[in-house]
């Protein structure tokens, strides 16, 4: 079935220049393999569409049950140059948690 990523994970996002970083953390460690499988860098880039001008990088932190994404060119120039209301990408973690992922019942309730 398809559920929003927010069903199994939470997160936080911030900025470094024109790059936004989004950390996604599973509530339960058993779901870490699910986000590794479902939340690929390409899918994240697709999810944000024109909001992300550059590439998306992904890093794994299995010790924290977390993935860290770097979204390059995602903040309208970043810092003081940006004309966006969310120039620091504070809300982008919540935006990623809206993404729909595939997970079967057994995996969800394991």
């Amino acid at each position, binding site marked *: 079935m398809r559920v929003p990523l927010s069903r199994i994970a939470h997160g936080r996002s911030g900025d470094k*220049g024109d790059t936004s970083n989004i*950390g996604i953390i599973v509530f339960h460690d058993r779901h870490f393999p699910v986000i590794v499988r479902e939340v690929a860098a390409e899918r994240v880039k697709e999810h944000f569409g024109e909001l992300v001008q550059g590439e998306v990088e992904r890093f794994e*932190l299995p010790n924290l049950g977390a993935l860290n994404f770097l979204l390059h060119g995602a903040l309208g120039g970043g810092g003081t140059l940006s004309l966006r209301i969310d120039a620091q990408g504070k809300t982008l973690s919540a*935006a990623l948690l809206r993404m729909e992922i595939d997970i079967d019942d057994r995996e969800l309730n394991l």
Partner: protein
Amino acid sequence: MIRIANGQGFWGDWLEAPVRLVEGGPIDYLILDYLAEVTMSIVQKQKQADPNLGYARDFPPLIGRIAKRIRERNIKVLANAGGVNPIACAKEVRRLAPDLKVAVVLGDDVFDRIDDMLSRGLEMRSMDTGEALSTIRPRILSANAYIGAFPLNEALATGADIVIAGRCTDTALALAPMIHRFGWKEDDWDLLAAGTVAGHIVECGAQCTGGNCQIDWMNIPDLENIGYPIVEAEPDGTFVITKHPGTGGRIDTHVIKEQLLYELGDPKKYITPDCIADFTSIQLRDDDKNRVRVSGIRGRPRTDTLKISISYEDGYKAIGSLVYSWPQALEKARAADRIVRSRLEKLGLMFDEVYTEYLGFNACHGPAVPNVIDPTEIQLRIGVRGHDKRAVDRFTRELIPLVLSGPPTGTGFGDGRPPVREIVAYWPALVPRDEIRTRVEVVL
């Protein structure tokens, strides 16, 4: 064990937080992080206007307010409040708290050395764009190296009650007391990485005690009285993150995980002037209520470069808005945007960027938002930026007329036309480590 508390996550954070840390229970060190990337340029402008300014002006009155108590309890304070004028900052602290010994760390400010460094072939290319610094040379406002924990340790060794630095890293403020008290050496990479991770966790203040927390935020207790973080550090590099009893907020492993991920790049390479920390080695455990134990941290040798942060003038910007109500609020806002853009074009005005957002529709989440059906109201927000100040100024006059002459039910113009702001942009670059020589001065 020593207790290191952070009472300020940025310049403008809660004024009561450091006072409550000093009053609310035992601590040994109070650290205060005042600097963001653009702060140095702001203080540089203040110094240009008045040579006695150019530092975080909230800091001296705070020390005046807590001076008696930190003397009684032998609490030492470390802050990167010095901006581009740490000596002036120290003198003001001395004036308001004459019984305290104040030391400053100097040498991070390389503004006067830019031409010398350029002439010796240091290109200081932007770490973001790869461009050479010479392309923006006339527009530079400030230039400061990020200083690590060892110069702060040297300042603590003078016996100072208050240590003031200019542009030191946020993490160095937490690491320096550990080096000072535990005798850690410059190549104790695992220990330095552990202190650095502790610094990263607490550097944003209450963001590691339940503030800005997405997990179960509605049930986090008493945010009004949120406790700011305290590191209980051990000589072996393990530590506990906690807060004073009776304060609000929450500390558990999930809260700490969110903060560990905040503003993180490659987790295996968290680079500071002191070491490279590996965030994939961090182990967290819920120790007790509002206590998280952190261990297992590994580090690697520091790099042979230091980062400098350069600020420079980069044109002007203005952002204006109008609000449209139901029905067809989004369509009305879009029609108004088309009118403004068309009028700017017919005036022949040139901008580097014109950017439109619709608050209440997709301003925060962009294309990640599903379709919204006829919202109650929409705020149209248009921003322009460019190097022609007159063009930016003219833009600020184009929104309000639409209230009478554009789509119906436009409002939200009460503050008048928006201000034109100067843009101060940020240029990070690397220089060889031995270019930067710090020194410590006790200010009498």
